[in-house]
């Protein structure tokens, strides 16, 4: 099956800056594809090239197998939900949703019927005559999507559409957006700098950094099996150390950190050599916590020390652990069951993790 959207070696330069640097990806029909990256990494630029507002400096964009580079934005079979939604404030809700159909020259009665049907589908029946400024944030969101979906685009582009909403509503809209996507069964390309949005909604996520794709994969793959240091650091929480490889044994690298801590870590097949500078990432929830050191005897990395502080955050609570004065504190997830819940500052504890849980990447950045 031809993918709905395919970008081949896409490049965009703005004068000196290379905003998008040789990006290739394809999005299968009906899937939810996210581009996740810090702000300024070039996400919007990719989006605007797909929508047709920017001309690529190089590469090609194909929709359902056909290049659209020569198609102007008002003729492309893609529609875009803008960062600030960009609803037409001079029109009522029904006119906003019907705008695209009116431009296609559809008969008035048919437009009215489809708009009403669309309002039902997005759960806002009877709101057609409302003014845009009389709507709540979540309602505007749905109208912005409906306005595009009524045109049956091959691909819907969404540029951080939840950015302007407050936290509670954002959590709610994440679920709703995913539901809307499967309801319409349309390909969504969603860009965000918020990893939880990407992880919750997407079938596939591309992690982007300074104009390049670092890794493309499902949320699980990115989270449990990051291929680059950037992905390991950007997706999820991590403890991070910088050190030098002391010894290599099969896939296990023994690393001495700057502060003198020895960590046994997994090189995951990348060719490291003794003396290489490396970065190590360990997730807080991958670290086992125990009151007795002997419980952790089966773990390769073990430390004993004190709880420096308890960062209580409900189910996502962590503690800060410190083994010795000169070592930096380590964040450790606080198990929600048993003896650990009443852990207080200053308590004597032991922590440990396996070799595989410590991911080690060659450190290139000076």
């Amino acid at each position, binding site marked *: 099956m031809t993918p709905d959207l395919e970008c081949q070696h896409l490049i965009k330069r703005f004068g000196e800056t290379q905003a998008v640097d040789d990006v290739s990806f394809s999005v299968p029909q009906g899937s939810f594809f996210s581009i996740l990256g810090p702000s300024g990494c070039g996400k919007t630029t990719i989006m605007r090239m797909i929508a047709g507002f920017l001309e690529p400096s190089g590469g090609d964009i194909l929709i359902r197998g056909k290049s659209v580079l020569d198609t*102007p934005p008002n003729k492309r079979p893609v529609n875009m939900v803008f960062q600030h939604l*960009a609803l037409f404030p001079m029109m009522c809700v029904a006119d906003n949703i019907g705008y695209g159909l009116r*431009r296609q020259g559809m008969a008035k009665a048919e437009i009215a019927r489809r708009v009403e049907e669309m309002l039902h589908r997005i759960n806002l029946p009877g709101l057609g005559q409302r003014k845009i400024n009389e709507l709540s944030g979540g309602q505007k969101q749905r109208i912005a999507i409906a*306005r595009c979906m009524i045109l049956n685009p091959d691909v819907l582009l969404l540029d951080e559409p939840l950015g302007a909403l407050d936290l509670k509503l954002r959590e709610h809209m994440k679920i709703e957006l995913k539901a809307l996507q499967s309801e319409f069964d349309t390909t969504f390309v969603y860009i965000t700098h918020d990893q939880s949005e990407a992880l919750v909604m997407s079938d596939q996520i591309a992690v982007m950094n300074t104009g390049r794709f670092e890794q493309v994969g499902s949320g699980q793959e990115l989270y449990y099996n990051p291929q680059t240091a950037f992905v390991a650091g950007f997706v999820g929480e991590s403890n991070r150390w910088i050190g030098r490889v002391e010894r290599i044994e099969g896939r296990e690298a023994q690393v001495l950190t700057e502060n003198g801590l020895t960590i046994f870590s997994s090189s995951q097949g990348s060719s490291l050599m003794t003396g290489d500078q490396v970065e190590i990432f360990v997730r807080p929830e991958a670290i086992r916590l125990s009151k007795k050191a002997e419980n952790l005897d089966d773990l390769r990395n073990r430390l004993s020390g004190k709880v420096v502080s308890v960062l209580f955050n409900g189910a996502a609570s962590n503690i800060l652990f410190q083994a010795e004065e000169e070592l930096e504190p380590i964040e450790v997830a606080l198990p929600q069951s048993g003896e650990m819940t009443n852990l207080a500052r200053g308590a004597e504890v032991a922590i440990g993790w396996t070799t595989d849980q410590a991911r080690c990447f060659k450190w290139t950045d000076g």
Partner: protein
Amino acid sequence: MKTETKIGFILLITPLLLWLVLLIIIPHIDMFLVSIRERVGVRQYQSSLANYGTFFEEPLYIWTFVRTATMSILATLITLVIAFPASYYIAKMAKGRTQSVLFLLCLVPFWVSEIVRTFGWMILLRETGLVSSVLQWTGIVSGPVEMLYNDTAIMIGLVYTSMLFMVVPLVTTLESLDDQIIEAAYDLGGSGLSILREVIIPHAAPGIVAGSIVVFMLTLGNYLTPTMLGGKDSLWFTELIYLQFIVRFNWELGAAFGFMLLLLSSIIVWSVLRLTGQTLEKTMG
């Protein structure tokens, strides 16, 4: 309201009120009183509507009145048509320095006084002027051409003088239109013309109405430009008023004319607001 804020409010509002009452309301009341009295003998007056009667009996007065109104409306429309693309360019397409330079260029004509500016036009357009000489030199015309003292000259002068007052409100409202909204309209299949009609003009409506009202009132009340560029027979209504007050010393008739002009501009402004569905608060806010 607390007493302190009350005092502050009074202090702030007093100059404005004084200005309104002393310079606008009182003279107008006085003028109205003058306009409804009739001289029956030396220093003998009686109340009557005779002055207004004179206005409606004399075809020349009515003709001038209608002509001034039509020409002002036309001048306003021409200004709007010229200023809109310019304002759109300044507000949406020009960036950074270019934008401020262009905006400043609209202000340049106002660095010289109106009378000097109008003389400039006369130098260009008169029989022995620059335009005429160039036309003769290139051989397009054989003899000198007089481009002054006709309606076109008046119109050019009026539009030129009014441009800034149209550009400023237009640029302000157009700037407040989010670029993303225009892009969204394109994205949904809009063409340039339909976006102009359905998105840009509705958004700019308050600016268009505000600019048009200001330009219309300035044009209607303009004296210098029509008189100088149109010559003796320019038939501008303000000229008739001037004539009555200064030349004929007929203050009663002049005042009645003044009131007719006030009435005319009020009616036209009111009907434009009604027609476009705008309110005074919306356009001036």
